[in-house]
C-alpha cells in the first residue's frame, strides 16, 4: 500500500506513521495536568480538524489544550472549550481517519 501523506497546517508528513510519532512526541513532553504551549496548541488544532468527530470535539470553540489522564493509567490530549467544557480526544484518530 502506498504511503499516504498528511498535513497539519504547514507541517507535512510523507507517512501517517510519522504524523502519529510527531504527535506522540508532543504528548510525551507533558505531565498530566499540564497546559499545552501555544505552539503545540496550534499543531493540535490543525490535527483536530482531521478528527472524524472534529465538529463535535471542537464544539463552540477551543480555548486551549491540556494533557490529562485517560483510562488505564495512560494520558491523552483534552480540548478545553470556550464554554468551560472539556473533552478528551485521540490524537491517533486525527491521523488514521
Amino acid at each position, binding site marked *: 500500500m502506498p504511503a499516504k501523506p498528511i498535513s497539519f497546517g504547514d507541517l507535512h508528513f510523507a507517512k501517517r506513521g510519522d504524523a502519529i510519532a510527531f504527535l506522540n512526541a508532543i504528548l510525551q513532553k507533558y505531565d498530566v*495536568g499540564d497546559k499545552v504551549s501555544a505552539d503545540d496548541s496550534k499543531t493540535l488544532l490543525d490535527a483536530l480538524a482531521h478528527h472524524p468527530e472534529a465538529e463535535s470535539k471542537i464544539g463552540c470553540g477551543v480555548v486551549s489544550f491540556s494533557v490529562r489522564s485517560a483510562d488505564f493509567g495512560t494520558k491523552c490530549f483534552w480540548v478545553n472549550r470556550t464554554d468551560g467544557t472539556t473533552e478528551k480526544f485521540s490524537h491517533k484518530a486525527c491521523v488514521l481517519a
Partner: protein
Amino acid sequence: MEPYGKARRPISLNWQAASGEQTWSVRKKLAFIAAAVGERGGTLVYANGAGEAEEVADLICQLLPPPVDSDAELSELADLARKGVHPNFTLASLVERGVAFHYGNMPSLIRTEVERLFRNGKIRFLVCTSTLIEGVNLSCRTIVVRGPRKGKGHPMEPHDFWNLAGRAGRWGNEFQGNIICIDPNDKSAWPTGVPARSRYPIKRESDAVLDDGDGMANYLALRASTPLAELDDVEKYEQVGAYLLATYLRLGSISQANIAKRHSATKIAKIEESLATLASLVEIDHEIADRHPGVSALGLQKLLLAFRAYEGDPENLLPAQVESADSFDRFVTIMHRINDHLYPAFEPEGLVRLYVLTVVHWLKGYSLAKMIRGGIEWHKVNGRSYKLPLLIRQTMERVEQIARFRAPKYLSAYMDVLRIHLTEIGRTDLIDDEIDIGTQLEFGVSTRTLLSLMELGLSRMSAVALYEKISRDDLTKEGCLAWVSERKGQLELLDIPAIILREIQSKLLSDGDETDLLETQ
C-alpha cells in the same frame, strides 16, 4: 484510704471464661469486664486502634440494659454524627445509649462533644485509643486496659502507660479510681508485665533518636548519596535529621545548640562532620528550612534542582485553580514530583490518585459526609464491595493524615522552593499570594467565605454546614457576621444540627447578643 487519695494500684484480673479461652475473643473480654465494672459511668476503656475501639464500644452497648428515656444532649450528638458523618455511623446509635468511642481522625467538633459528655457523665463508657495520651485531658473513675499498644504495634512505654492509668481517680470530687489490667500474666498482652509505678524521665524525641548508638550519624553520612528507599529506619531518623541540618544551616555548627549539651562530644563531632558535608550541598536559605520543620533541607535542595532542570512551561509547576479541569491531574503530577524529589510523602504510589481526590474535594469545601457518600457511590458504580465502618474510618483518615497533615506540610515546602525558582528565572508574575496552599489545605477551604468562617472560630464541620447556605464565595469576616445576624431566629429552620447551631451562636453571635438561635427548639 490514703490521705491524699489517688490510690492507684492496678487491680489485676485473670479472666478464664467458663467455656474455654478460645471462644472469648480479647475484644469481648474487654467489653464484658468494662460493662460489668463500669456501669456507674466515668469508665474509660483502652483499645488498640480506631477499628477496635468501635467494635468494643458496640459490644459494651449490647451488654447494657435498654435506656429508660432519651437525653437531649446525647440525641443532639447522635444527630450530628448522622448528619456530619453518615446516617449509619455507629457512634450515633451508641451515644444514644451512653456509650462512645474516640480517636484522633474523628472530626474535632464531634470529638470535643464526646469528651464533654463523658466529663458530665452522660456518656458512661468511652472506648479510646492512644490519641488520649497525646494531649487529650480526660479523667475517669475506672480505666480498663489489656495489652495496650501505642500507635501501630509497639507495646506501650511505662511512662505512657502511667499517663493513661493516672487518668483514674480524678473523677469529679472522687480521689480514688480503679485501674483494671486484664490478663496481667499473659506475655502476649503485656510482654514486659504491667509497668510498675515509679518516676519515668520524660525524654525528647530528638534525644531518644540520638541516644541510639551511631544510628543518626550513619544515617546522615548516607543521606545524600543513598536513595531513601534503601536506607533503614527512615521514619525514625528523617525528622530529627532534618532538624539537625536546619540547626546547622542556621548556626553554622550544632556544637553550641542545646541538643549538643546533652550528648557526648564524640558523637556530636561525628554528626557534625556529616552535617558539614550535607550543608555544602544545600543552597536553600536556613529561613526556608526553618519554616518547614521535619522536611529535610536536602530534599528542598533536590526539588530546587528538579525545578531548574524542568524544560516545560514553568506555569505547569504551579497547582491549577481547584475549580479548573486541570486541577486533579496537576496535583497528581505534583504529588509524584514531591515523592521523587522532596520526600516520599504520598505512598504507596498506587494511592496517589485517591489522595489527590481527597485533597481536591477537601479544598472544594466538601463536607466529610459528602466525601463518604462519594466513596460509597464509587464502590457501587464499580461493583466493589465495602464495609461501611471501614470506609468511614478510611475517609476520615485520609482527610486528617493526607489533606490536613501531609499535603499542607509538603505542598507548602514545594511552593516555597518553587518561589525561589520562579524568582531566579524572573517569573515572579506567576506567584499568587492570595491564600497560600498550606492554609487552604489545613482548613480545607479554597474560598474567602469559608476561610472567613473558620477565622471567626468555627470548626470546619460547622463552617461547611453554614457555607452550604451562603451563596457568595467572597465574604470577609464582617460579611459573614452580617449574613448571620441578618438571619437571627431563622437559622434553626435550616436543617443544621443543634450542636453546630450552638457553635455558630457562640462564635458568631456572642457579642452581647442575647437572641438565642435555639430558643424555638
